[in-house]
């Protein structure tokens, strides 16, 4: 009986593992192909390269028209990090006001904030482009970064409001009695306790900005300002004459930063999804 139960337990894992392999196969295919010589990528189906080469990485890193891929990576990092800082700072300020402070019209502002979460970006797309064009900000990073410094990702405001509401009010009340101003309460009491929500916000902002192909494509056409996503798209020629090895090597590299962030902060990540999902 005991042995049977153990087999039963092991058997349960079989479909889960098979499904897991199927899920991870495209990623493994990408990594293994990036180490294969160009002519073997589509003829050798095995996941373990028969001939192993780093040439694709060397070729891909050269970029094109004299601009190396390192430039694209640096650009993507600049945009992502500035966006992370913007979201963390401005969303937490707004969230503190919504969650803790009494002010005029607070209910109206709060419901407007909730509505903007569900708004598709299309309805603001064209006028935003017109505004940024008037300001001569096309081919700069302002259109990509400035919205984050104006807390337009209201999803994160809601996330932090929920989190702050979970912090006992008695803490701020006793601080008020001790003569703390609201600003001091924000900086000294709430901000340190808010760290898990700030990390969740930072991770998601980083990944979404890194992958935000659409806005980057609309606002950036100068090769020197290109991001990783734009660089890969430029290497890729749908008609079929791409240097596949280089393309897949750079694609593999493009996934490294987000994977690293995910693995480092996995706990916050999965908790963040779960708690925002529940509310």
């Amino acid at each position, binding site marked *: 009986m005991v042995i049977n139960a153990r087999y039963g337990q092991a058997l349960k894992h079989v479909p889960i593992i098979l499904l897991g392999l199927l899920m991870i196969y495209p990623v493994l295919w990408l990594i293994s192909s990036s180490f294969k010589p160009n002519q073997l990528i589509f003829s050798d189906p095995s996941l373990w390269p028969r001939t192993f080469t780093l040439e694709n990485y060397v070729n891909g890193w050269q970029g094109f028209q004299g601009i190396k891929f390192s430039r694209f990576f640096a650009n993507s990092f600049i945009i992502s990090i500035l966006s992370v800082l913007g979201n963390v700072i401005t*969303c937490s*300020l707004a969230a503190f006001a919504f969650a803790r402070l*009494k002010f*005029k019209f607070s209910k109206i*502002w709060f419901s407007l904030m909730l509505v903007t979460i569900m708004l598709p970006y299309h309805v603001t797309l064209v006028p935003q482009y017109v505004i940024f064009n008037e300001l001569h900000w096309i081919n700069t990073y302002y259109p990509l970064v400035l919205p984050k410094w104006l807390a337009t990702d209201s999803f994160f405001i809601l996330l932090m409001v929920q989190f702050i509401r979970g912090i006992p009010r008695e803490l701020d009340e006793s601080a008020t009695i001790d003569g703390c101003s609201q600003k001091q309460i924000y900086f000294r009491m709430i901000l340190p306790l808010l760290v898990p929500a700030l990390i969740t916000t930072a991770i998601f902002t980083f990944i979404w900005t890194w992958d935000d192909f659409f806005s980057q494509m609309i606002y950036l056409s100068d090769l020197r300002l290109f991001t990783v996503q734009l660089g890969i798209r430029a290497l890729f020629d*749908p008609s079929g004459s791409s240097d596949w090895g280089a393309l897949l090597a750079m*694609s593999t590299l493009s996934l490294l930063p987000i994977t690293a962030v995910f693995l480092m902060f996995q706990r916050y990540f999965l908790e963040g*999804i*779960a708690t925002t999902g529940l509310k």
Partner: protein
Amino acid sequence: MGTSRRSLAREQNQTAYLFLLPWLIGFFFLTAGPMLGSLYLSLTKYNLLSPPTWIGLDNYVQILTNDSTFSGSLLLTFKYVFISVPLRLAFALLVAVVLNKGIRALGIYRTIYYIPSLLGGSVAIAIVWRQIFDSTGAVNKVLSWLGIQGPSWISHPDYIVYTIITLSIWQFGSAMVIFLAGLKQIPADLYEAAQVDGARKWNQFFSITLPMLSPVIFFNLIMSIIHSFQAFTPAFVIGDGRGGPLDATMFYTLYLYLKGFSFFDMGYASALAWIMLLIIGGFTAIVFVTSKYWVFYGDNKEGR
């Protein structure tokens, strides 16, 4: 005492608006203002170079009565949303229920299943997808082992949308993580009581798990619908970037992008955006209205 309390309230009011300032600026200049702006532009002809000229409802009339690309892209987007969202959520729920049975190494499985959601939005994965579904790619190799001659998924206009749908279903991990968290919240004594009463597993799933999980399903459904209507990168990269082959990847967002930023017909693109807002709003409203019949909020919140 009265004055100091009033000054305290005034101080709080000032601090609040100071803290809200970035958001307020963003709200007026990047959200509300542009929304009204696009409503106005949708009633004009505008190409960015010369000032907009008022044409009333002409854009809307043109779109609704005389634009076969619009109706085609709307149908294609509906097809994508209504196949991929239910399948993705069903898959997420199924795997979450299986993983929730106290299985060992849950953390590792959860990570592996989540990775596609993490990477799926990138250009890199869209390129991989194109290759895997290529006529000589991995999918057709597996099919040929089974004796099936697979079609050329990418170049055939009837099939390419299904490759984009599978890419969406592949990313069921984020919904699964939310379901897993929801399943943990269901009190175990409900299942124990059901077992004592002799209820079968199947019945337990439909009478306990599904109702208890319905608020989470509701949330996932709304977010998935809104999100899927806006899909762009997979259609752009897996297709040829111009909606081809034969408009088979002309998703709504891609059409809007091409109208606005390729042909610079920005009034027309704004009208397309407003129609999309109404459609998404309509579907969200339907889900909200029907939710009172199928979403169960537990005793303490009932009647709210």
